[in-house]
């Protein structure tokens, strides 16, 4: 039933555009119908709640994270649901007349209904997370409503400010709820209430309370978060009448009431909540007096009244809570009617400036009379509802003297009276300035009474003001008792709602407020002058916007500090990180192991020295490109010699070939480099980089030493033992490559293939300008294809092919194999390109080079898949011996096919990359 209730406005919002456009129903009619339906649903459920029962409907939803769909109808939710729906109906009716035809699209009512649904969901939630969900939804939908006038920048800014503050507050609330849930162990309100004092006694209670108050305070415009509310006055007036009287700003107040049983009662609660309320009450009342905008006055008065309610909750006394709830009702009623009246005035005169609107009573006496009654209620004039709750408020501030040990309890009655003085003064200003005080000045329109039905909602509300003010026990007492019972969670104390309590202290306070207010208003010219001369006023909006601007600026600078798109910076940071982490990780570990040291021989020493010199020379001579490339070649050569020296012939062979291909590649690339090398960076930076590089080098050296001095313990003995019997080859390196770890090789040739594809993709369609000269400024040689080179290369090709076939076939047993053979073939073919140029070579090598790479990978994979046919896992190998004429008996392993795939992929890639890069020249030449 409760789910249905919450769904009604949402369904209404969903159907509204359809009903309005297809069936030509007035959107306001549909909207008020939904609200009306909701109200009836609430009222059917209300009877048991008045008797103190709590209705809970629950559906399990996400038990894993403690989220269920659960609704709760108790006195407090009942009160709020009635306010939301009841005032909602009136606002819709009012909006129908207020909004111009252009504005009154169904969009407005859709937003309004969505907001209404969110508010209902919030007040009816039993599950806390679900409550949060609706809480954020109210922020979001209120943004849409406040910013409804899209073209108006003030509306956009006001809406954004409201969203920023209330949305941010929602996150704080989220934190508070999560902490509470952690402590209680459940996110159900019932469980939270049952937990008694456990939250208050927990260490995190202060954190919870602060987060909670940020959440509630932002929403209810409490100091210091109050400043969004006046800016939200850019909303259409029906929105203000709804959001800032009965609903949105009351959501924070609702929360105070909701969590009163578990959070209130501590000293911290008293100081924080009543302090916040007191500050808000005074500040709002004071500032309200100085507003010239009609709605601005009402906005600050709302802030002040919200502060009053918060203060009452902060006192923590049972009677204080009753007064708070009573004032929630009263404020909602008179403030909604006042906003509507302000809207009518705006509508009929075309302005809301109280310096221009005067003497309206003559033009619209009926509206004037209604507005004056409502304003009197706001001021707390007897026989009206505002008087009753204000009287209770005064009484509570006095009662504090006996209830609290607070030193400054005397402050409260005085502050309350002072706020009362200002409230009377600004109410008086609302009445006197607008309806009397001379003639209107330069009004855009001639004022007259509004359409009959537009005033009906105001009439209803004003009647309520009077009815509650005169007959409180009949009209409001049951609801008040039900709601207060839900807040206090205990039997209510006796309280009297009489109009007349005799000549007691609260009455004299009221009297003082009246007198003071009239006096203040009488001397307003002097007060205004003093106020205007006050030093610069803090603007929360400007502060927030400044903060945001600062944040953006900070982000900007941070972005540039972190990311100046310099690779040098990146690699510097990276190396630094690894050095620091490495140093942290290594601290305190033993330096070397106990393994046997290999004695140092002269060959290795020489090699090591040359290696170091070569690396250093590459860095130092990097401006002379040719020398740098030669030095790189030297480093590579020494490395391969060292491999050979430490008995790794396969590695040495591969390294030499890779070195050749690399040097050719670098030389080809050099052709396209700009003639001048870029500027040398400053010495300081070079030294900095040098130090870092040296530190990294030393780190690696230390590591290698530590590692190499450990006693060897490896599974390589397995490979040595099993290579021949299980893998069918005596070259362990090759057997590992094509058999034991063949899948790695498959992966690596794929990597090669990707490199080929990538380069192909980047080079396609690329035309580079051919430099006229080389990097030293010399013109290119006119003899592009020297005869000697052509002849020798022709001779070399068959030899290279023969050698690679030899290397390939013997690879399984002796140094060699598909990878090395592929490189040899590749180098041989490349020589053809270099000697004769791509134009001449291309027709003789017509195959699609990418196709060769692809075929290589496919052959390798198919070899692997083949083993499935025999019932073995992927890449299982087998071998046999065959005898061929001329070559003799040799071993044929299935791994050989795999190696063929490797061979093809390598040949294809080498050709792709080198011929592709060289081919750019051809294309460029022909341009």
């Amino acid at each position, binding site marked *: 039933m409760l789910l249905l209730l919450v769904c009604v406005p949402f369904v209404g919002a969903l159907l509204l555009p359809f009903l309005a456009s297809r069936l030509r129903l007035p959107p306001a009619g549909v909207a008020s119908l939904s609200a009306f339906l909701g109200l009836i649903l609430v009222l059917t459920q209300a009877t048991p709640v008045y008797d103190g029962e709590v209705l809970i409907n629950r559906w399990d939803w996400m038990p894993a994270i403690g989220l269920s769909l659960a609704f709760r109808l108790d006195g407090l939710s009942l009160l709020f649901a009635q306010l939301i729906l009841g005032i909602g109906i009136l606002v819709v009716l009012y909006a129908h007349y207020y909004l111009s035809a252009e504005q009154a699209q169904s969009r407005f009512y859709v937003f309004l209904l969505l907001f209404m649904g969110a508010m209902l969901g919030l007040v009816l939630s039993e599950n806390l*997370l679900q409550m949060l969900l609706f809480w954020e939804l109210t922020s979001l939908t209120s943004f849409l409503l406040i910013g409804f006038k899209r*073209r108006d920048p003030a509306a956009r800014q006001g809406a954004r400010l409201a*969203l920023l503050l209330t949305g941010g507050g929602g996150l704080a609330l989220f934190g508070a709820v999560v902490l509470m849930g952690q402590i209680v162990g459940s996110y159900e309100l019932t469980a939270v209430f049952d937990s008694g004092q456990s939250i208050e006694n927990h260490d*995190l209670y202060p954190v919870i309370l602060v987060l909670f108050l940020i959440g509630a305070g932002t929403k209810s415009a409490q100091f210091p978060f109050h400043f969004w509310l006046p800016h939200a006055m850019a909303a259409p007036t029906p929105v203000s009448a709804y959001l800032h009287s009965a609903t949105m700003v009351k959501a924070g107040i609702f929360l105070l009431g909701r969590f009163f049983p578990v959070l209130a009662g501590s000293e911290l609660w008293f100081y924080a909540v009543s302090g916040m309320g007191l500050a808000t009450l005074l500040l709002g009342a004071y500032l309200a007096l100085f507003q010239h905008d009609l709605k601005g006055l009402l906005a600050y008065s709302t802030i002040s009244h919200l502060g009053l309610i918060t203060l009452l909750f902060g006192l923590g006394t049972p009677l204080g809570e009753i007064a708070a709830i009573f004032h929630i009702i009263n404020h909602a009623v008179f403030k909604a009617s006042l906003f509507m009246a302000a809207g009518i005035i705006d509508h009929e005169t075309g302005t809301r400036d109280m310096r221009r609107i005067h003497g309206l009573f003559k033009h619209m006496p009926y509206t004037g009379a209604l507005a004056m009654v409502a304003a009197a209620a706001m001021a707390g004039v007897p026989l009206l509802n505002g008087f009753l709750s204000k009287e209770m408020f005064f009484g509570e501030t006095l009662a504090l003297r006996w209830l609290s040990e607070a030193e400054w309890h005397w402050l409260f009655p005085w502050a309350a009276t002072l706020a009362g003085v200002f409230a009377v003064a600004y109410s008086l200003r609302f009445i006197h300035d607008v309806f009397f005080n001379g003639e209107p000045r330069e009004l855009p329109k001639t004022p007259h009474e509004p359409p009959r039905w537009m005033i009906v909602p105001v009439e209803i509300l004003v009647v309520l003001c009077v009815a509650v003010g005169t007959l409180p026990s009949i009209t409001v007492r049951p609801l008040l008792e039900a709601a207060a019972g839900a807040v206090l969670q205990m039997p209510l104390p006796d309280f009297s709602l009489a109009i007349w309590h005799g000549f007691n202290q609260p009455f004299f306070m009221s009297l003082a407020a009246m007198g003071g207010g009239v006096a203040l208003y009488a001397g307003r010219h002097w007060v205004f002058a003093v106020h205007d001369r006050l030093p610069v006023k803090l603007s929360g909006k400007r502060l927030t916007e400044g903060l945001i601007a600062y944040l953006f600026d900070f982000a900007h600078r941070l972005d540039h500090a972190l990311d100046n798109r310099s690779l040098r910076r990146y690699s510097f*940071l990276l190396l630094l990180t690894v050095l620091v982490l490495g140093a*942290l990780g290594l601290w305190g570990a033993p330096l070397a192991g106990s393994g046997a040291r290999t004695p140092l021989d002269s060959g290795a020493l020489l090699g090591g020295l040359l290696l170091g010199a070569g690396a250093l020379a590459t860095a130092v001579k990097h401006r002379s490109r040719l020398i740098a490339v030669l030095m790189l070649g030297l480093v590579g050569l020494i490395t391969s010699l060292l491999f050979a020296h430490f008995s790794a012939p396969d590695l040495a062979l591969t390294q030499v070939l890779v070195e050749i291909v690399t040097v050719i590649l670098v030389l080809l690339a050099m052709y396209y480099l700009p003639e001048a090398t870029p500027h040398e960076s400053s010495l300081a930076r070079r030294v900095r980089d040098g130090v870092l590089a040296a530190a990294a080098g030393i780190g690696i050296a230390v590591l290698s030493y530590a590692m*190499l001095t450990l006693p060897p313990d490896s599974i390589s003995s397995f490979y040595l033992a099993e290579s021949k019997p299980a893998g069918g080859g005596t070259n362990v390196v090759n057997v590992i490559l094509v058999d034991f770890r063949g899948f790695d090789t498959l992966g690596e040739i794929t990597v090669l293939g*990707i490199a080929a594809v990538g380069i192909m993709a980047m080079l396609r369609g690329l035309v580079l300008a051919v430099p006229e000269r080389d990097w030293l400024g010399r013109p290119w040689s006119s003899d592009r294809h020297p005869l000697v080179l052509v002849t020798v290369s022709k001779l070399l090709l068959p030899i290279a092919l023969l050698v690679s076939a030899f290397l390939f076939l013997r690879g399984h047993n002796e140094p060699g194999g598909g990878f090395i053979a592929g490189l040899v073939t590749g180098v041989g073919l490349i020589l053809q390109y270099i000697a004769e140029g791509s134009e001449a070579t291309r027709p003789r090598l017509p195959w699609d080079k990418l196709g060769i790479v692809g075929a290589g990978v496919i052959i390798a994979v198919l070899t692997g898949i083949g083993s499935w046919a025999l019932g073995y896992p992927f*890449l299982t190998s087998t071998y046999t011996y065959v005898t061929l004429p001329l070559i003799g008996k040799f071993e044929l392993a299935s791994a050989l096919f795999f190696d063929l795939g490797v061979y093809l992929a390598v040949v294809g890639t080498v050709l792709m990359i080198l011929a592709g890069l060289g081919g750019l020249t051809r294309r460029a030449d022909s341009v």
Partner: protein
Amino acid sequence: MTAHLLILQVIIPLVSAPVCLLLRGDRAAWAFTLTVSWAVLANALLLLNTVLAAGSLSYAIGAWAGPFGIEYRVDTASAFVVLIVASVGAVVLPFAYKSVRHEIPAERIGLFYTCFLLCLTGLLGIVVTGDAFNLFVFLEISSLSSYTLISLGRDRRALTAAFQYLVMGTIGATFILVGVGLMYMMTGTLNMADLAERLSPVADTRTVRAAFAFLTVGVSLKLALFPLHLWLPNAYTYAPSAVSAFLAATATKVAVYVLLRFFFTVFGVEFSFEAMPVGQILSMLAVVAMLVASTVALFQDDIKRMLAYSSVAQVGYIILGISLASVTGLTAGIIHLFNHALMKGALFLAMGCLFLRLGSVHIQDLQGIARRMPWTMAAFLLGGLSLIGVPLTTGFVSKWYLVQAALEDNRWVVAVLILFSSLLAVAYVWRVVEIAYFRPARRVSLRVAEAPAVMLVPTWVLIGANFYFGIDTSLTSALARRAAETFLGIGT
């Protein structure tokens, strides 16, 4: 074939890549790749099913049992990550057809799909392998192919971005290789399970610690952990739209998976989090990443770049969960792997739709675009809500677990910072929403039409998933929890 499910997961895309290269015409290449990616997804689902029934699966390649041969091994965590990668691939490809035709010259499209398949191969291979070196090989496959994919972006700056990524990525890969090499020297084995056993006796040596440091830094670079994230914004900004979506949803996730494997399976939780100070370092960096990257995102005018920075922040969330090394923390991290893939995938796909119609995703070009492209912008809005972590979305579920984990560990300051960074997310998402929804449209964008259905449907499939898995969390949270327990060695 079920016996070979595990290896098929890698072999299907691997063998398809060269085949795709031989196809003529971009439509054929696309259709083929699409079919393959769906086959990969089907395989991934079968695999997950098998793993859920059997606990874990192992496959000895070449019939060489580990530690001598290469062993492939899948447990709940890897099956889950495989599912993420495969499903993102399967969703992005239908989208890719029009987007790629628009952004990439016709003669390169065949190559594009080849690289896409290879990238898929690499990412899947990393996840299913049980061998440290084989992992490196597949890491290279995925990295190289992603460099190529990024370089294919229409903007010339894509080349620079790809080059930067290449240099940084290669340094990272080298670190990983050094780390694997050091481990091999210390233990003589490359098989992860075997490594785990053999490392503990030598855990107190400098070499093992160094190996750990190298691996951590190398992998952190790959997963774009602050401050090693610098390659990511450019790469995601200038890559073709489909690539941004695919990589953003998968690449960093797989790198996180690698981190998890090394920390928890290979080195073990005691070594990683007690002997080494990695827990504190990572959680600190993660929190800084959350805050700094979100702040920087606030300032970006290119929305793809903004989303890229948001990814850096989101990686912070994931790493934060992991660094807590508790069941809830790991669950939070792992579930966010999945959830972030969904939200970022959806958001980048929406970017692709915008780019198709506007030729730009600069914030100024998006003014009032919501009325012209309502479906696209609605997708962005909903994806943004998920990114922020609004209830009913997957983002909320992740954040919820993460906050719980932080609180369990008594780090309520961290919990508050998580919420604060969500606030930053609200700000940067809202900035776009406001411009797209509440500003009047520019004259040039008045004739812009909504993106075609073939692109909207995949986008909305991901948006739908964001809400589906935000509401029904039983599958994802059960998987993530089980994976977390496996990593921590609790339960089965």
